[in-house]
Each structure stands twice: as C-alpha cells, then as structure tokens.
C-alpha cells in the first residue's frame, strides 16, 4: 500500500515563527502536492511538484514556499507564520498525472 506520512499530526506555533511541514511518500511517485483545508472552503492547492527540484504554484501560494530535494520528500515552509495560516495541511502524492492522489493524515497547525 502507498504510504504518505506527515511529520506531525498537531503543531502549535507562534506568529512570526518559521514553520516546516514535512511529507514523505514511499511509492516512488513523481507528483507531490500540498493543500490546506478550511471549513466551508474544501481543499485548496498551495503548491505541487512533478519532479525533484521542480515546483509549481497552486491556487494560494502566498505566504508559503516549498522544497523538493529528494523524490520522496516534499516540504512546505511558512517563512513567517501568521494566524490566518491556522489550518489543516494535507500532503498527497501520485504517479503519472494528478488523478489518483494518495493523501497523508494531515497536520493541524495552530498559529497563536
């Protein structure tokens, strides 16, 4: 079975802190994605990557950056966390085309 793991299930950070969210997949998938999910808004795509060192902006990239140095790992970085970045963050991976995405368990981030 495909496994997508995220570094933390729950995280509490202070405003202005730099935050790293790590995602690792074990199926040699080319594509990896970061989403945030907020009540009433569904999932919104932040960034995605279709190859090592490649990245593309999604619908809401402002305030975020990403890093993909190895195929299996995709990191989401909040350079200076703000309270409006309090959310559930979901990582996903897929092979060949974005369709059958496999999601991690999510990280619930609270910025105070």
């Amino acid at each position, binding site marked *: 079975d495909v496994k*997508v793991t995220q570094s933390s299930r729950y995280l509490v950070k202070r405003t202005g802190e730099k935050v790293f969210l790590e995602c690792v997949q074990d199926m040699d998938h080319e*594509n990896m*994605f970061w*989403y945030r999910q907020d009540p*009433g*808004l*569904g*999932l*919104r*795509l932040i960034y*995605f990557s*279709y190859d090592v060192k490649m990245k*593309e902006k*999604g*619908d809401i990239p402002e305030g975020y950056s990403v890093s993909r140095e190895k195929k299996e790992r995709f990191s989401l970085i909040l350079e200076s966390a703000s309270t409006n970045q309090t959310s559930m963050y*979901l990582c*996903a991976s897929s092979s060949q*085309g*974005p*369709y*059958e*995405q*496999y*999601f*991690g*368990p*999510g990280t619930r981030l609270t910025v105070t």
Partner: protein
Amino acid sequence: LAKTTQPISMDSYEGQEVNITCSHNNIATNDYITWYQQFPSQGPRFIIQGYKTKVTNEVASLFIPADRKSSTLSLPRVSLSDTAVYYCLVGDNMGRRALTFGSGTRLQVQP
C-alpha cells in the same frame, strides 16, 4: 480548468442508493472525471474515475452522459460508514497540471 458544481449536502438512510450529481459544463475533450471521498480528520481517498458512459468498481458507479457536461456518482445501499464528504474533480490526465477540489457534497446517512 473546468469548474464543477455539486450540492452542498445530501441526506439518506441506510440501505438506500445515493446519487450525487456534479455539473461541469466547460469540460474539455481531454478531461477525465474523478471522485474522492473524505472522512473527518482524514485525507481524501480516491473512489472512481471515468471518461464517458459508465464505470463501476467495488465501491461505486460513475455515470457520464454523452455530452459529458455532468456526471453522477452512485453509491449502492449506503451504510452509516458512507457518511463523508464527496468531491468531484475534472481535469486533464495527460499533463502536469494539478486538480482543483471544490467544497464537495456532505452526505449524511441516517440509521
């Protein structure tokens, strides 16, 4: 990317068949239709994908009319464990573009 429209919520009872319709009027020739299911506190899970006519797997069926401007996810004989949010997505399976998840349909199954 083709925009999708789904009902915000639906209610059903155990044992009934549930049909959730998604409209995608601007679907392109190369676009596929995919449905995901999400339980609380979990990431979405792929259910089914189709291009035209009908697709069936062990979980659901997907009906796509000839004009492909809509699709219907059919869940046979739902149980309480089918209570979840269901997302309809439309996009090109060939390129490297990501898909857009909408707000989904919240299905509540009652005993």
